[in-house]
């Protein structure tokens, strides 16, 4: 058992090392030069072309004139000390920028995971329970339809209809800038108001999968012999469904929730750009545009670690709820 855990940890360590290495190599394989666009704050500004000496100074300053393997070791060492480098474009430490943006993305992703899982599971189980009835058929068609719309397109539609058209929600951003909030509650309400549409877009686009899985899983469980045993024992309906059936039906859903975190982050990046939401997604788009290697690397690293963390959590949680695993 302990042996197994140790093996797991080693696996994770190796994965992180591979990710870091790829992270180091990838930007260096992209053609282009980070010092072409340096001092201007936006793309529209006039570009300042550096002189040869200035370029060499900066190359030396960032260690880019060193051989690649040396750069690699320096990179590893710095990373180990928590230094993800200094943004060429934002002129701030990368860790600072990423950590500043991360909570918004995490907030959005987690909210939509929780919402889509809850709603998807409940509707899926309900559908399974009413299998082949009209409720089930209607839900099934509806979910298939929505799960096929990409999240950013859904975001655009929501933005047009509810923000631009009906004016129910703000068009962009995560908070009202320069507002003077009377209380924490008021601020929280403002944040939720801004986050509602992006979270809704992500949730809806993710809902179909969870619903289908929930429906499928519940349908399978309802046919199992142990469920017949539970009915035979004369237990109340609630007990049979929630204790005997749902606990089994949840197993594949839990796995999926954690494993889907990665793809949700991908979706979040697109949705954030639609709503100009100040998370990692918008940050990434800007950084790619200006070829800000350190920031891109930082984002990749943080996202990967988050996904690995989610995997690890999935392992732990699964072990908790399914006694058959790991014994």
């Amino acid at each position: 058992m302990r042996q197994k855990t140790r093996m797991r940890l080693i696996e994770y360590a190796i994965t992180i090392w591979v990710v870091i290495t790829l992270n180091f190599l990838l930007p260096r394989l992209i053609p282009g030069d980070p010092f072409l666009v340096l001092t201007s704050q936006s793309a529209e500004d006039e570009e300042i072309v550096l002189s040869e000496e200035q370029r060499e100074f900066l190359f030396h300053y960032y260690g880019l004139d060193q051989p690649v393997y040396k750069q690699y070791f320096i990179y590893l060492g710095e990373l180990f000390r928590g230094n993800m480098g200094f943004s060429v474009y934002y002129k701030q430490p990368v860790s600072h920028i990423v950590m500043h943006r991360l909570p918004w993305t995490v907030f959005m992703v987690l909210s939509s995971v929780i919402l889509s899982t809850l709603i998807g599971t409940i509707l899926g189980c309900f559908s399974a329970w009413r299998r082949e009835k009209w409720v089930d058929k209607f839900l099934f068609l509806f979910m298939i339809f929505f799960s096929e719309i990409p999240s950013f397109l859904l975001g655009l539609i929501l933005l047009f209809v509810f923000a631009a058209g009906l004016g129910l929600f703000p068009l962009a951003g995560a908070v009202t800038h320069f507002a003077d909030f009377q209380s924490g509650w008021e601020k929280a309400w403002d944040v939720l108001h801004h986050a509602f549409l992006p979270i809704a877009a992500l949730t809806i686009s993710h809902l179909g999968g969870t619903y289908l899985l929930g429906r499928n899983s519940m349908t399978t469980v309802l046919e199992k012999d142990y469920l017949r045993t539970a009915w035979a024992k004369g237990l109340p309906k609630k007990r049979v469904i929630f204790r005997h059936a749902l606990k089994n039906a949840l197993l594949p859903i839990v796995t999926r929730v954690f494993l889907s975190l990665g793809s949700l982050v991908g979706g979040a990046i697109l949705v954030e750009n639609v709503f100009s939401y100040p998370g990692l997604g918008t940050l990434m788009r800007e950084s790619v545009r200006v070829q800000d290697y350190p920031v891109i690397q930082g984002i990749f690293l943080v996202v990967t670690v988050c996904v690995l963390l989610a995997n690890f959590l999935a392992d732990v949680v699964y072990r908790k709820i399914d006694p058959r695993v790991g014994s």
Partner: protein
Amino acid sequence: MTAESTSLLLVNELSITYNGVSPPVKAVNNISLKLKKGENLGIIGESGCGKSTLALGIMGLIKNGSVKGNILYKDLNLVGLPDDKLRHYRWKEIAMMFQNSLDILNPVLTVEEQVGEPLRFHCHLTPQEIDERVVHTLEMVGLDPAWRTAYPHQLSGGMRQRVLLAMALICEPELLIVDEPTTALDAASKNDIFELLQNLQKQLNFAMILISHDVAFVSQLTSMLITMYCGQAVEYGRTSDVLKNPMHCYTRGLLNSSPQFFKYKDLWGISGEPPGEGAPLKGCPFAPRCCQSAEGCGKSRPQLRYVALERRVACHKGGIETFLKAEGIKKNYRVGEKSIEAVRGADLEIRSGEVVALVGESGSGKSTLAHILAGVLPADEGSVFFRGKKVENHWATKMIGGMQIIFQDPFSATSHRMQVLDVVKEPLEIMKWKSTAERNKAAGEALQAVRLPVTPEFLQRYCYSLSGGQRQRVAIARALITRPNLVIADEITSMLDPSNQANILRELKGLQNRFGFAMLYITHELHLARKVSDKVYVMHRGEIVEKGSSSVIFEKPEHFFTKQLFKEAFRSSG
């Protein structure tokens, strides 16, 4: 205490049809049964005969199906009762020990939770009390209570069976339905479960419906027995009576397939398969596999009818037919001045599809009796009936589907001056049956059945050129060509070497199983008799001194002479 006398469970004309498949399958067809408090009822039948569906029907657990008829539990009709009312009867009054399988217990809940939870909802006990009861019940079924924190996947098959039993008994139900309790259990665990059920019933006094294809297991625990075939009850009676004397061909087939009853006999299953799902069942469902089916059997479904006290059989023929009946047969031989009593008042009965062995020493009158039965010799006194009609003037041996005798000595039984083909089709020639071409065809088939060649050269060979084994086969083919319902085989293997003897006997028994004819097998070779017979008659000095089921006679002979005979015969073999 009036409840003692009335029935606990009364199932009345219950039919269960599964509608989920097309065409709908009628898994249970018009079954009625009665169970008193503390009584045990066994239900036997092959897999897929509707036993488990009946059990689920009584529990009210039929999904995608319609239930017709009544299930009266303590005078309350459970059919059509809404689920939330029925719920209170499940487990508290009627519990079920399900067939053991990996999926029968919930994989994510502990043993304790699964065994104890009915108490919470039916008896409203506190968690503390539930735990005590669970520990107590697990101890009762012989499982260490420490296992209650385990999950089902951690248990062995035998332990899971005990958990299932503990779970079924936790609320101390009045009726316990036990479905296939011995599936996949080894002999030791099987015995454990057997003893547990027996002891616990004494302790808790529940009534029990025991469903199994393991006839031996069921018969030891129950007092009444139902045989089910294709969703229908085909035989109903006291367990001991049914075992001793099955009245339906299907029940007999099941018994013959059980190694526990016949320790020495070879196993012969029931030939053929049950009709497939959704097959049109107009006539008797067992007719295609039955050894005595006739034209009328395919026309309508037989109903369960009384054929004896406490015995009902669903058969158009009223159960297994008696083919041959001999009453008070006497025969004296005159040797000079002296009269020798060869047969002294023998009674004998052979039923359809049965192999009856007539054993005894040489000179005990076996062959004389056989010849009288076949009508070869006239009896001095007594009469022989074949299918209820007195045997006179060879009518019974002169017909298709009649009676045939195969003699001991193939060399004198088949004329050495005749060709094989002529010998075999001789009976048909005598009967003037159909055309020559058809007679030849029938002869070919009969020869093939006994595994002789049918090449023109062989057919034209003269019998004197055949070996003993071949000639005996020719004699058997000649008997089989009339498709007899009864074959009397008089010491047919005694003149053959062991290998030929084994081959002929196995083939004859195989043919018997395939065609379903009855056979009187006369022999002094007890080892052979023990291998093939269902019933045994022991003859000593012209008298039948003992008769009965071969499973009983060979195990526990009663008569002094039989004991002596067996002792000598089986001395070396133990």
